[in-house]
């Protein structure tokens, strides 16, 4: 980058790529935090952000977990939704056409209970037009292995991505969404990339619990929930930094508590090629728009002429060493 700082660049290439998918801006919704997209469309045009990552969809309609599903925590929240959704057929019939009509770029997130379910979902997506990429949410219990979460099992993670890759062929980019609740995130990341993932989404929520001191039982209907919001941001920055160091060529969608342009920049400097905004949209429906504008200005202020120059910039060697 131009480090001299003598000339102020007024133009910035804000675009990003994941596999062969190009996005005009590096800002996305986080899966499960924008519902079908219609809800946010009242507040800003969906085409104005990088893309919509849809709520993880499964083969069949799903009612999700009992209430209470939410607890606010210091600088964050716990949720326990249980992947409530319409199922892939209704999703493809109603939600995808709406997003395409809005000229939004669409990353479809899929979730399954078996390796086979992920492949079945991928097969249904293969011929759908208007989709830029697939996110494979592997933070689901594997019913074929005592409910152990795929993302916490390196071998199961690889098999899911391998199955999806074989089913959809080489065209559509695959983004594997990983859980931070593992001992060796880098080895899981390497495994899914070897199996055919083009990109990684880091991080999913962190497993947590709140106990209600009046009822003296777990507050959430599902007992445990996923912690999100600024409380987990340092965990996410660390995860992105470590994985980018090990896999510098693999694009990462960074997420976890991003609520401002500065937070987004931090994630990009750690090695993310794009950022997803989730909990911040709950607190502010136009969060993605303000984060996008702030990020652009912060990059310009630092003399970057493209977003890509800033990706992983925190990894550069210290001058003189």
């Amino acid at each position, binding site marked *: 980058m131009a480090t001299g700082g003598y000339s102020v660049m007024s133009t910035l290439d804000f675009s990003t790529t994941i596999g062969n998918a190009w996005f005009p801006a590096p800002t996305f919704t986080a899966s*499960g*935090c*924008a*519902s079908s997209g*219609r*809800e*946010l*469309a*009242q*507040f800003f045009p969906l085409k104005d952000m990088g893309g919509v990552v849809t*709520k993880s969809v499964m083969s069949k309609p799903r*009612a*999700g*977990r*009992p*209430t*209470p*599903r*939410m607890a*606010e925590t*210091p*600088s*964050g*929240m716990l*949720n326990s*939704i249980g992947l*409530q959704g319409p199922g892939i057929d209704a999703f493809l019939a109603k939600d995808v056409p709406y997003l395409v009509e809005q000229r939004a770029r669409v990353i479809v997130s899929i979730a399954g209970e078996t390796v086979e379910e992920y492949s079945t979902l991928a097969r249904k997506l293969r011929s759908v037009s208007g989709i830029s990429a697939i996110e494979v949410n592997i933070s689901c219990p594997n019913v074929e292995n005592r409910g152990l979460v795929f993302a916490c099992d390196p071998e199961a993670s690889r098999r899911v991505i391998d199955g999806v890759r074989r089913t959809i062929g080489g065209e559509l980019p695959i983004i594997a969404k990983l859980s931070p609740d593992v001992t060796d995130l880098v080895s899981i990341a390497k495994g899914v990339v070897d199996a055919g993932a083009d990109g990684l989404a880091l991080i999913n929520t962190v497993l947590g619990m709140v106990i209600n001191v009046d009822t003296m039982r777990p507050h959430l*209907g599902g007992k445990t929930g996923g912690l999100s*919001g*600024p409380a987990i941001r340092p965990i996410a920055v660390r995860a992105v930094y470590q994985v980018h160091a090990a896999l510098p060529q693999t694009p990462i969608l960074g997420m976890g508590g991003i*609520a401002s342009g500065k937070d987004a920049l931090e994630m990009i400097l750690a090695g993310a090629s794009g950022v997803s905004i989730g*909990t*911040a*949209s*709950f*607190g*502010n*429906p*136009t969060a993605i728009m303000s984060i996008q504008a702030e990020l652009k200005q912060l990059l310009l202020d630092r003399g970057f002429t493209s977003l890509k120059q800033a990706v992983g910039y925190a990894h550069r060697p210290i001058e003189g060493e």
Partner: protein
Amino acid sequence: MSQINKSARQILAPILSNKRVGQYHQIIVSVGDIAAQCKPGNFVAISVGGESSRMVLRRAFAISRVSTSSTVGGTMELIVAPHGQGSKWLCAQGEGVTLDLVAPLGTAFGIPTEPVPVLLVGGGYGSAPLFGLAEILNSRGCRVDMILGASTGSKIYAPMEGKRSVNSMRIYTDDGSMGTAGRVTDPIAEIIKDLNVAVIYSCGPMPMLAAITKITSEHDVVHQCAVEESMACGIGICMTCVLPVSNEDGTVSMLRSCIDGPVMDGSKVQWQQVGTQL
């Protein structure tokens, strides 16, 4: 644009006044054109705690009343009980403080096309939106009767001017400290018969709404209730505020109380399934 949240806008709105009324605060906010879009039953989602707040989620409050004709333009009245950290923060904000709010959100109470007798039932601070509703129903020629209940008298919200729009108001408290000792649901069956009530509008805690639904199921009365479920976003994107509601085909779906509610048809809500796995 989208049909969901179709009138909602996010604005910065100054507080015009904040007065303590018993255990509640009456907060008037200048909201401009938004006031004309607000209907009884709608709610507002407000950011709390200021810039460095550790409270990341908005707080949802029922809009108790709006005025489009004040000297400062459109205003919105909120009745807030300082319960939790967010509502305590809001109640502590004085005149001139600017609030970041999104409104109007959610469904509204349906107004009958004929001037029929209606009964309004409020539990605790749930009575707040019923006074604005009473004014509208009254202006449409409906006979409006109201019953309010709470655990104790200090938790009853019943402003003097609110009584103007109602034919009668009865108060019930668990401890008998105000009005009659007993539950607000005790006299409903009798009132339905005596006044030939066609619609019950209710707002309050879930067990009260469930109990009213049980009564209306035995009579030919429509029950429109405003539900209270904890929400993270208020705009339909987080899926936390769901309730089991029956569909036309007899199946049950988890509907969001923020966009498919807060006003719902009480007979469709599967109260016994709330908090259970479908």
